[in-house]
């Protein structure tokens, strides 16, 4: 049974460690914040200039000067700090952000990622995505295994314009958890009831299966 978006987020949240500074992209990655394990303290970075992002404000308490990278109104937490965009990307570039979670349109089995541009469609821009993928020490992609047409998004090489090269470390889809290794996508876990063959049939890039692949604990 394929995971829901919430389950994907919950599975990614299990990768968090105490003291991590984390940047969460728009979409499924944002949901990860809802599943931070008990007893673990994580600081969320918003690349428009905030460490310590809090939840959405209560109705009537929105501050137009206080938004996240998705332009949503947010709040601060005790220990929050504001800074300018150069320092924000400076700390990302310096590898101080422990984990970046973001969505993707395609990922290659070498860890290349495409998530900003579709030829023929209006291009809105890469925002901070290229900086994040080029600099983050650890990148997890949260995405569906296939696109709406049923085509695999895990490819031998990206077909869309690239956002970054050889940067993705791990992928969590509704079907599987996979690491990027020199041999290709290494299958780590299967969604409950999803077979290795199901995953293989939806993975266009090199898939490595070693021994028994456990089912994910959801």
């Amino acid at each position: 049974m394929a995971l829901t978006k919430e389950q994907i987020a919950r599975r990614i949240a299990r990768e968090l460690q105490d003291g991590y500074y984390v940047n969460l992209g728009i979409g499924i990655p944002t949901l990860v914040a809802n599943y931070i394990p008990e007893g673990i303290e994580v600081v969320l970075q918003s690349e428009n200039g905030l460490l310590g992002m809090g939840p959405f404000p209560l109705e009537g308490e929105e501050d137009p000067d206080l938004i996240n990278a998705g332009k949503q109104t947010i709040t601060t937490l005790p220990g929050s700090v504001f800074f300018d965009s150069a320092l924000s990307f400076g700390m990302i570039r310096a590898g101080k952000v422990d984990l970046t979670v973001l969505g993707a349109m395609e990922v290659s089995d070498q860890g290349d990622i495409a998530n900003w541009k579709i030829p023929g469609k209006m291009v809105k821009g890469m925002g901070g995505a290229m900086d994040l993928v080029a600099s983050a020490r650890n990148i997890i992609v949260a995405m569906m295994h296939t696109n709406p047409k049923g085509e695999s998004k895990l490819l031998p090489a990206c077909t869309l314009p690239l956002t970054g090269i050889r940067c993705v470390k791990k992928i969590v889809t509704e079907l599987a958890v996979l690491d990027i290794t020199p041999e290709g996508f290494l299958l780590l876990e299967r969604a409950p009831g999803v077979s290795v063959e199901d995953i293989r049939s939806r993975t266009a890039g090199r898939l490595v299966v070693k021994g028994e692949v456990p089912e994910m604990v959801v």
Partner: protein
Amino acid sequence: MKKVVKNADEAIADIRSGTTLMLGGFGLCGIPENAIEALTRADVKELTCISNNAGVDDFGIGLLLQQKKVRKMIASYVGENAEFERQLLSGELEVELIPQGTLATRCMAAGYGMPAVFTPAGVGTEVAQGKEVRRFGDKDYLLEYAFEADFALVKAWKGDTAGNLVFHATARNFNPLMAMAGKVTIAEVEELVPVGQLNPDEIHTPGIYVHRIFQGVNYEKRIEQRTVRAKA
């Protein structure tokens, strides 16, 4: 030394057509509302605008786009703007998209007198086309040049008559960087105070970078994505 000007119209009076402008803000947060509005009243066109975003149809840089005052937009993300899209597709408007961190760093480089900086953002992508790639250690970087802008239009929370600026929350974003990068920097503030009123430890932009300052009026501070949570 007189940096204080009466209002936005006086501040931008010598901005001419064909000029390159930097405009602070992220989305609609921390944008120089008054200066943009004054530009809609001014006889200027063919502007090159360097700004992280291009506003929405009826606010921010969108107001300048409506009037077809912008020839080229240098930004990292330009969604949320139908008129922008129309002009882009019709070829009236030129757009250069660059990574957000690269944009920030190229502004900072100008303010720090660095002619160029190295950043890994965009290596191996179309952003790298025509750019010098250099390897340091085991990583490749692009050489990116400092921006040059005739004017920087920024918005701060408070400022003093010496041009010192303090920003609030995430409205800081690109503002202090662009304040440092303009050949002429025009700052609008929500509150203009006499020198001595700001704590010297708490100033974000030293006045040496600011050439003109005025207290803005009628700030709308529009929220682009109003999101709230339910009361627990």
